[in-house]
Each structure stands twice: as structure tokens, then as C-alpha cells.
């Protein structure tokens, strides 16, 4: 909300600088987003705590002046020459302002016009350029007449973007006074939190300043000078549901004249972000901005006409579903059955508290104004604004709650202003229906409660002193302070909630910064391990240690995008958003692999090789369950060059081979083997398998005992075609993280370091191609028994020497005994057993 300083000063004395005031507001919960200077200045060369914009008016160069005569320009119809007195001497000032034309050629004016006057060298905004561009007034000749100074528009002075004419100040403006002293101002842009809705008005903010600086608040008296016939018998109110409409007040102003409001009124409205219209409408907006009560003005005579010449009865009720009303912004609303309407016997007049209807609004022809000041259920207003997609300054306030007492204050304040600015007469009395009186909460607080929640010691009297500044009524009885919430706010609750609310007010007035910071002295909770997190961290660290880069994707995707990696897609249910932000982000993912592959696709041209992984949930809806199952997955994708960078030394003789540098199936298999080994998960098995994402000949399911923990493989060529991938292989794995981690134990037992030397031996075995390596290795282990501690494949050979359809696998075997140095003979015996077994079972031949 935009709060002009000058307006605040109507209610409270402020002797703080602009930035100090902004700081004070921020520190009591009214965060200032920006200070806009409208004439006033802030200290230079000081560090600023707030963004500052706007224009400072130089005291000696921009002053109040009076135009004594407006004369025609000798060479231009659209320019006039003003005989102007700046308090010291007379100048001839050139201007093209249309609002001075009416005075042209009248000779010396009987009432001089007061204007803001910028002298030579003054810094102002350029009125002819869009936006705010600073310029310095320089001497120039315009159409033969020398010009060096200027009568200013609001745009030139940074008040608004109005540049239609120059400002004509109120007649009592003192000629010669520095303009900044006359009307220099600053506007604080304040962020009003929902629990401070009472401060969405000048009076509210002024009250907070008065409280925080412990100064008196000059509260308006809300007296009205009634000089017209009583409203009694001229209008009636019927509230059908007090829950939705606790209070409705009507007042009447006779014989209004639609005029421009006084200049200072229009300026304040503009500074607060509203546009002045005329003296009637301005009064409603002014009162709303000042008091916080949105008001609505009806053309009384239209209502009488609608009532068939009789006094109108205002009826508030919920709409019938489908009922229609065209609001004054020209939008036709088809209403829901919970929207509250202000109606008369002929039908709907306005959407209660939000916007008036087109038919009954005040126009230039309105003579008598019926003024509504009401209080509405804010939750209902909020629902209506959402369902009707309506927004207005009135709705903004009503949707946050306006106290019924404030409705009356706003009504009175507005009536008085409207009569004053429009030369109307206020009808005696008000019609005031108040069927549901808001009972202001009473809360009891004690020093003990304050100590318990804030950690500070305050006596009952100190508590009272702080709260009284905010108009809480307090009675002290022993240790108990009984606190009455003041009749302008609705944010204080009852019971323990009310206590917390009041304690917040105590803290605000005491100053959050004055509450000493302490280290917790309370008992620690029972301490527990968090194995899931600990194991997951270990897994992350291992993957990173193996050179993999973690990625984190959007969890929102579409089934179509998720289907890309799979040649066949089962019809799986998705969690779908009701209000997606875009069609591309409409479903919660079921596949983590699909996410990582998209990331690979985006990066594949940026680098020679990628080794990425992601862990995170997938969302699987379950029959009969409200929430989907959130299962954590691990997906890994490798492609392109292995990432270690090394240069080669080549010469003419050495071959230049690169294929061996690319990631292949076994890189990922090795990563998974190491991962499982490092997590001390024994017995991992890779079983040939067939999943629709993968090349059927290069695909494995990853098993641990009975459990299938995931799948891995090289992407199927047809899947790869669907992506913008290069032609190198893409290897991927998709694992069930929860299942995997659940099998990880806390500690594994560490074996002792062998003291006796091993016997090392290499053997090469020729077998037919169809025999998988792990059968051979398993047989070797089984046969080798306790003395065989390690079997390592180091070479695969194919060639004429060993025959077509055969392969030779070479292994390093390590024999070792825990209790003695093994002899070559013992090792040879084991080896012979192994070779014999392999011959018998697999037809293997020892290659010599």
C-alpha cells in the first residue's frame, strides 16, 4: 500500500527522517519496499537501507509562485505567456498548458493563480519524454521568446504521470515559499501482512507509528455537520443473513455538485495510487484510504425510481445461482449461490463489498447520494472474488476483514468530506442495521506467559504500558492483565490463541531486536539414528567418488515425455495436476530414468561424455489410497567419452584408436558392482533380462538374493532414435533406492590382514562362446575352496589358434592360507582340481 507522509502527519507528529521512519515501520511489521520522494530528500553519502526513487525539489529553485496575468504568445496560438511573481521578482514565463488558456487575455487576474515554479537550473523530470527522465532547466528561445524557467505539471515534479496541464495550487498557497516546504512529500510503499489488515489505511499506519514512537494519535472525531432532512423514512435496510453481513449503514447527501476536489485531495489520491475523478467519488476513495472502510455511493434518485417512486429498501442476500449483474467495469457476472449481493426490490445493485453495479452508480447527473458503509464476512468476500475473478481496492480490504465499527467511522468520514467538497447537505441521522455485533476478544496475560513465550521479564504494568499504545484496554489485577482488543481490529483471538496474539503485540512494541538471543536450555529430545538419511548420504558420496555428477530434475512432466524411453508402455495411473502451470508440467513423474535421459539430451552437445545420476521420488497412485506411493529411485546414465581427460602421445607408427575411450555396458556394471561392494552388499547378481528400454542383448536385471533391485543396460537402438543423441552408446540403470538401502547393514566386519604370502597363478581356459563368464568364475570359486581367495578375469582372446566359436578367458588366481605359507604343490593341487572340474562340466580346455 502507498502511504504519503503528509497524510500520516494529519494524525501523528513525526520527527524522524524518511529512512528512520521506514526502518521503524519495517521493524514493527510494516515492511517498506520502497521510498518514493515527491519533493523531500534523504541524506546523501549515507548508506541506504531502502530502495529510494523519485525527485527531490531544490529549495531555492522550485517555489510557489503566482500568475498575475496570462497573455497570448505573439507567434504561437498554443503557447501563452504568464506574468509571474516568484515572491522576489516578476518573470515572463512561457507555457503551453491547456488549463491556462481560459485565463488568456483577461488582463490582470483578480485572483492570481498559484502554481509551482521551477527556476533556471532546477532539476525536474522531462515532461515530454516517456517515463521519468531528469533534465535541468536551461535558457532557450522558443518562437522568439526567451524562456529559462517553467510552471510545472505533476509529471515534471514527479507527483504522477499527469502532463495535461500545469498544477494549479489551492488559493492559499504562500507565494515565494519553497515548494518542498509547502507540499514536499514522500510515499512509503508498504507490504501489509494479512494479520495487519487494520493497517491498510492511513489511520492504521499512523496508529502504529504513534504506538511505536509513544506519541499521541490525533484520532478523527467522526463528527458530521448535518443540515439536511433526516434520512429516516427515506431508505430502509434489510439484512437477510447477519453472518454474511453483520452491519450495514446508510447515509444521504443532498444536492451534490460534481466538481474537481481541492488540489491537495487529488494529489493525495494520486500519491496513494488512485485517480481523482470528482468531488463525490473522490470522497469515497479518500475515506477508504484514510479510514480503511470501502464505501459505495448510489444514485439515490435511481433507487427511488426503481422502487416505483417509493423510498428504496436495501436488501442484502446471497445471489440465486445464475443470477446476473453487470458491474461498473462493464463485466457481466453470472453469480454463484454464495455470492452476497446488495439489492433493492427491483434486483441486484452491487456485488457486496467488492464492486458496484453499472445501473445505480453515481454519475455527473447524480444529485442525491445514498452512501453505503457496511461490514461483510471476509471469507465469503474472498470466495466471491475468487469465483467471480474480481479484484478491487474495496475487495482487497473487505477480503481481509474490516471491523463493523470501522464501517460507521468510514461512513461518517466520507459523508463529511463529500458534503464539504461537493457543497452538499448531509441528511440528519443514519440508517444503521447492526444485527451481529462483533464482540471484541478479552484476553488474559501474565508476566509468566510473556516469559514463557518471549524469554523476557515484564511486570503487569510494563505489559499494560506497551499494549495501551495500541489502544488495548488493560486492567491489572495482581499478576493478571486483562486485555480488551480495541474496536478496530479483528486479528486477536481468544484463549491461548488470543494470548499468543497479544504476546506478539507486546513483542512488537518491546522491539524484536531488544529481546535477547539465548541458547536453548531445554531438555534435548531422545536421540535416534536416522539410517535412511545416513545410508542415502553414503550412497551419494560413493556415486560422486566414482565420478558421477548428480542432477535434480523437475518432478512434473507428462505421460508422453515419460513414455519416450520405453518401447512398450503399460497403462499406468498418474498423479495429475488440476491446475498445471503448463501443459508440459501436468503430471508427477513415474519414471526417474526418463527425467535423467532428458537431461542427457539437453547436455549431450555440450560435452564429450556424461556420467549423470539422480535420486528422488517417483509418484505411484494406489487404488484406494488418497496419497500416491512416493518411492525413491536411483537412475544412472553414462554416454560418450569416459571423462578422465588425458592426452595421448602418438607418432607415425602408433595406431590412433578412440573407440576404447567410450563408456560401455561394463563401465556401468562396474560402477554398480563397486557401489554394492562399498555398501557391503554381498551377492549382487546381474541376470540377462529384457526390458523395453534396453537392447535385449545388453540388458540385465540387478538382483540381490530374492530381490530384484533394478535394471540396467544399453538403450535400445529404437529408443535412442527418439532422442537427439549422438551415435555413441547410452548406458543406463534404474534402481529401487528404498529397497536397496533397506538391505544395507550398519557395520560390516573387517577381516584381518593376511600374514602369509599368497601364491599367484594365471590360467587361460578355452570354452565355447555360449558359456557365460560367471558360470566359469562361479565354478572356479566353488572348486577352489577356502584356499582360493581371488579370481580375476584379465583377458579374453578369440582367434584361429583356438578355433571357430571358441573363446579363451584368462584369469589370475590367488591362493592363500590364513595359517601357513602355501606351497606351490598345494596350489597346483587346487588348480588341477579346478581345471578338471571345468573340463568335465563345461568342456573347457586349459590353454598352454
Amino acid at each position, binding site marked *: 500500500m502507498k502511504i504519503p507522509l503528509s497524510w500520516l502527519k494529519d494524525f501523528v507528529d513525526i520527527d524522524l527522517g524518511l529512512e528512520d521512519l521506514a526502518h521503524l515501520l519495517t521493524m514493527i511489521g510494516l515492511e517498506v519496499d520502497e521510498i518514493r520522494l515527491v519533493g523531500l530528500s534523504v541524506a546523501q553519502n549515507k548508506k541506504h537501507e531502502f530502495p529510494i526513487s523519485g525527485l527531490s525539489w531544490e529549495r531555492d529553485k522550485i517555489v510557489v509562485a503566482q500568475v498575475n496575468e496570462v497573455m497570448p504568445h505573439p507567434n504561437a496560438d498554443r503557447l501563452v505567456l504568464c506574468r509571474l511573481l516568484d515572491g522576489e521578482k516578476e518573470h515572463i514565463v512561457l507555457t503551453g498548458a491547456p488549463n491556462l488558456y481560459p485565463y488568456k487575455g483577461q488582463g490582470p487576474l483578480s485572483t492570481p493563480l498559484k502554481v509551482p515554479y521551477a527556476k533556471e537550473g532546477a532539476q525536474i523530470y522531462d515532461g515530454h519524454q516517456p517515463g521519468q527522465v531528469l533534465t535541468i532547466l536551461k535558457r532557450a528561445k522558443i518562437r522568439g521568446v526567451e524562456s529559462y524557467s517553467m510552471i510545472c505539471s505533476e509529471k515534471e515534479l514527479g507527483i504522477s504521470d499527469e502532463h495535461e496541464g500545469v498544477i494549479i495550487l489551492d488559493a492559499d498557497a504562500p507565494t515565494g515559499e519553497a515548494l518542498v516546504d509547502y507540499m514536499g512529500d514522500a510515499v512509503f510503499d508498504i507490504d501489509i501482512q*494479512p494479520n495487519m489488515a487494520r493497517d491498510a489505511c492511513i489511520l492504521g499506519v499512523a496508529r502504529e507509528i504513534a504506538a511505536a514512537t509513544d506519541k499521541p494519535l490525533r484520532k478523527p472525531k467522526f463528527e458530521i455537520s448535518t443540515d439536511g432532512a433526516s434520512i429516516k423514512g427515506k431508505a430502509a435496510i434489510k439484512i437477510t443473513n447477519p453472518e454474511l453481513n453483520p452491519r450495514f449503514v446508510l447515509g444521504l447527501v443532498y444536492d451534490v455538485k460534481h466538481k474537481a476536489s481541492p488540489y491537495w485531495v487529488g494529489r493525495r489520491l494520486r500519491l496513494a495510487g488512485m485517480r481523482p475523478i470528482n468531488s463525490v467519488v473522490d470522497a469515497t476513495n479518500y475515506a477508504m484510504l484514510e479510514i480503511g472502510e470501502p464505501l459505495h455511493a448510489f444514485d439515490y434518485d435511481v433507487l427511488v425510481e426503481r422502487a416505483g417512486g417509493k423510498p428504496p429498501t436495501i436488501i442484502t442476500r446471497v445471489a440465486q445461482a445464475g443470477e446476473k449483474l453487470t458491474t461498473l467495469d462493464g463485466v457481466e457476472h453470472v453469480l454463484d449461490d454464495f455470492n452476497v449481493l446488495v439489492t433493492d426490490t427491483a434486483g441486484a445493485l452491487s456485488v457486496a463489498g467488492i464492486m458496484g453495479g453499472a445501473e445505480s452508480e453515481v454519475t455527473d447527473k447524480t444529485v442525491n447520494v445514498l452512501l453505503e458503509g457496511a461490514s461483510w464476512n471476509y471469507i465469503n468476500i474472498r470466495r466471491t472474488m475468487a469465483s467471480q475473478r474480481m479484484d478491487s481496492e474495496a475487495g482487497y480490504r473487505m477480503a481481509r476483514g474490516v471491523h463493523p465499527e470501522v464501517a460507521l467511522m468510514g461512513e461518517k468520514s466520507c459523508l463529511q468530506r463529500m458534503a464539504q467538497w461537493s457543497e452538499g447537505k448531509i441528511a440528519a441521522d443514519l440508517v444503521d442495521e447492526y444485527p451481529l455485533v462483533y464482540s471484541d476478544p478479552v484476553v488474559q496475560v501474565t508476566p509468566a506467559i510473556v516469559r514463557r513465550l*518471549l524469554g523476557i521479564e515484564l511486570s503487569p504494568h510494563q505489559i499494560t504500558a506497551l499494549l495501551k499504545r495500541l489502544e488495548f484496554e488493560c486492567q491489572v489485577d495482581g499478576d493478571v492483565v486483562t486485555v480488551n482488543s480495541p474496536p478496530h481490529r479483528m486479528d486477536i483471538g481468544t484463549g491461548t490463541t488470543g494470548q499468543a496474539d497479544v504476546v506478539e503485540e507486546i513483542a512488537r512494541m518491546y522491539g524484536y531486536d531488544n529481546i535477547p538471543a539465548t541458547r536453548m536450555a531445554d531438555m534435548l529430545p531422545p536421540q535416534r539414528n536416522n539410517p535412511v538419511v545416513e545410508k542415502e548420504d553414503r550412497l551419494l558420496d560413493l556415486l560422486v567418488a566414482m565420478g558421477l555428477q548428480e542432477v535434480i530434475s523437475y518432478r512434473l512432466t507428462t505421460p508422453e515425455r515419460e513414455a519416450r524411453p520405453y518401447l512398450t508402455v503399460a497403462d499406468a495411473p498418474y498423479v495429475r495436476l488440476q491446475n498445471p502451470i503448463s501443459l508440459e508440467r501436468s503430471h508427477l513423474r513415474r519414471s526417474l530414468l526418463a527425467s535423467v535421459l532428458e537431461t542427457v539430451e539437453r547436455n549431450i552437445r555440450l560435452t564429450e561424455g556424461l556420467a549423470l545420476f539422480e535420486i528422488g521420488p517417483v509418484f505411484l497412485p494406489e487404488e484406494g489410497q488418497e496419497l500416491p506411493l512416493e518411492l525413491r529411485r536411483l537412475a544412472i546414465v553414462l554416454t560418450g567419452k569416459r571423462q578422465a581427460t588425458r592426452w595421448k602421445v602418438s607418432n607415425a607408427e602408433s595406431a590412433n584408436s578412440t573407440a576404447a575411450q567410450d563408456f560401455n555396458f561394463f563401465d556401468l556394471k562396474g560402477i554398480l558392482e563397486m557401489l554394492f561392494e562399498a555398501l557391503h552388499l554381498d551377492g549382487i547378481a546381474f541376470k540377462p533380462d529384457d526390458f523395453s528400454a534396453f537392447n535385449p542383448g545388453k540388458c540385465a536385471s540387478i538382483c540381490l538374493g530374492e530381490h530384484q533391485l533394478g535394471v540396467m543396460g544399453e538403450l535400445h537402438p529404437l529408443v535412442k532414435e527418439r532422442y537427439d543423441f549422438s551415435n555413441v552408446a547410452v548406458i543406463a540403470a534404474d534402481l529401487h533406492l528404498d529397497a536397496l538401502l533397506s538391505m544395507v547393514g550398519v557395520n560390516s566386519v573387517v577381516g584381518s590382514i593376511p600374514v602369509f604370502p599368497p601364491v599367484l597363478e594365471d590360467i587361460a581356459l578355452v570354452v565355447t562362446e555360449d558359456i557365460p563368464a560367471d558360470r566359469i568364475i562361479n565354478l572356479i570359486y566353488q572348486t577352489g575352496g577356502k584356499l582360493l581367495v581371488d579370481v580375476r578375469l584379465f583377458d579374453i582372446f578369440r582367434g584361429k589358434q583356438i578355433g571357430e566359436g571358441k573363446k579363451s578367458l584368462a584369469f589370475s588366481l590367488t591362493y592363500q592360507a590364513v595359517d601357513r605359507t602355501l606351497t606351490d604343490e598345494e596350489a597346483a593341487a587346487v588348480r588341477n582340481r579346478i581345471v578338471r572340474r571345468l573340463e568335465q562340466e563345461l568342456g573347457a580346455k586349459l590353454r598352454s
Partner: protein
Amino acid sequence: MSEKNKIVMKLKDVQSQAEQEIKKVVTIDDLKALQIKFMGTGSPIDIAFKEIGQLPKEERPSTGQYANQVKQIVDNTFAKCIEEIKTTTLQRVLIEERLDITLPGYRPAIGRLHPATQALRQVCRIFSDMGFQIFRSTETDTDYYNFEMLNMPAHHPARDKWDTFYTTNPKVLLRTHTSPGQIHAMRKYVPEPIRVILPGMCYRYEQISASHEFQFNQLELLVVGHNITFGDLKGTLEDFARRMFGENVRTRFRPGYFPFTEPSAEMDIECFVCGGSGCQVCKGAGWLEILGSGMVHPVVLQNGGYDPLEYSGYAAGLGTERICMLQRRIEDIRYFWQNDIRFLEQF
């Protein structure tokens, strides 16, 4: 000439011959051959020693002494020469093997955690040291836990603060904050005291821009106990700020609004980029909004199963990507989930 003199003469000759030949040798191998020639079996010195054995008994000691002297001298000469040759050879090898050390190094592949994970870990570690334990809850949750139990009934004005993604089941939404975890944690642990951190991904219905993401990590603190005060809240968060942003960082607390805390507070830290004088990062304010916090609202305590007359507590929440952005001056929050390798590799 006596036999003795002959032997002495021969030894003299051998000595000078050896000294001369050694000088000509260049390689260790030649030198070793030469050593065998002069000193090995059947060499002149070897023969001389044998001949001494045949001399009259009284001549043997003096001749033997002389022969030993010669042997020693020749031995030393060989040793010295071996040293010299080794030194020169080594020097040559060192020169030959000299590297162009300006060639680039062989870089091992290095893995990295995603910056969001790194930031979360950093924050978690600080709070872990203070005795906070991680408590996780799901990313989808019900309106009941995300709003209602947090003191935000349907159509509550405060709900405006959280633009929400709803699923096609109107009761189920993507959590807008980690705060539903407060209720889950309280209901799990009641009546024990609580000191937990709730990290995780949250979602808000927002158009994506350089400063807004619809998906982001949040980390929330929750403390519940018998004597937990606003002063404790300040103390914990100030300690956190000092560890996260530097020993001398200034903090300030000002009233804020969250429906699930009362009193509520925003914590700002003095901008560590400009030291408070105003810059792009703090948008001229000198202060950076870091987290929202407050004393757990009595209604929320009650919803969690704790009697607000007996227990009190505080909660705080912060966006960890935002903190990472401030620390590393990241200009665009979209970088995080775009996963451009050129971004990720900078962490």
C-alpha cells in the same frame, strides 16, 4: 733383482696402469670389466698376492703390506670413478627425461553433488551440530496437513501466500512448504520434546522466472519443549547465520506473518555483498531476507497433540536454493533444475 723387488715393481706398474686405464673408461660396464681385469681372479694383483706367499718368510710382511696398499689405492680409484660415472650418467638421464611440465595434467573424472544438495547438506550440518535431526515427509500431502492443521481453514486469507498445485483429487496437493512435516513430526513424537529439521522439495503455482521457481527445496526447523522462548529462536537462528554467512554477519528480526506461528518473525542478514550499503544482490536494501520464523501457534501445537499451556516451540523455514544463490551470486534460479553441465561443473 730380488723376487721381492720384482713383485714390488710389478705392483707399481699395475697401479699406474690401472690408474691410467680407469681414466679412459666411460661406462660402468667397462669399468666393471676393467676392475675384474686388474683385481679379479688371475689379475696382476691376484697373482702378486699369490707370489708373495712364495717369498722368504721374513720378506712376506713388508711386501704384503705394500701389496695391500696398492690394492687399496686401486680399489679406491675404482670406487671414486664409479661414483663419478654414476653422477654424470644420472645427470644425463635427468636431462634426457626432462618433461614439459607446462603440458596439461591428466584430470581424473570428478563427480559432484548437485548444488541444491550441497546447499541442503551445508544447512543440515549446521543444525545437526545443534542437535537437530532430519525428519522427512512426503512431497504430496493433503489439504488437511498442508493448510488446515496449520491454522489455515478453507478460504483463510493467509492461503493467498501459497499458490498451490492441486491434484485431480481436490484433497491432495503438492506441499507448498515443508510445514506439514511439523504436524507429522509432532504426532509421531508426542509427548517427547522435539528438535527436528524438515528438508525437502516444495511446490508453488508460480510462473517461472529468474527469481521464481515452481519447485524448490525448503528446510524447516521445529522445536517443541517446555521452556522454548522467542529468545531461543533468535539464538539458534543467529548462530546459524554466523556459521552460514560469516562470524561477523549482522542479523535483524522483524515482525512477519505466518498463520502457523505467533509471534512470527522474519530474519534478515546484512547484505554480505555490499556490507549493507546497497547493491544489486540486496536490491538496494542492504538487508537480505533469509528466513521466516516464529513461535509455534497454539492451535498448531494442539493439532500436533501438545498442550499449548504446557509446551511451547518455534519453527523456521528457509529456501536453500535461494541461500545458495546469494552465496554464489547465481542470477537465475532456473539454472538449478535445468541441469546444464556448465552450471553444475562450477560447484
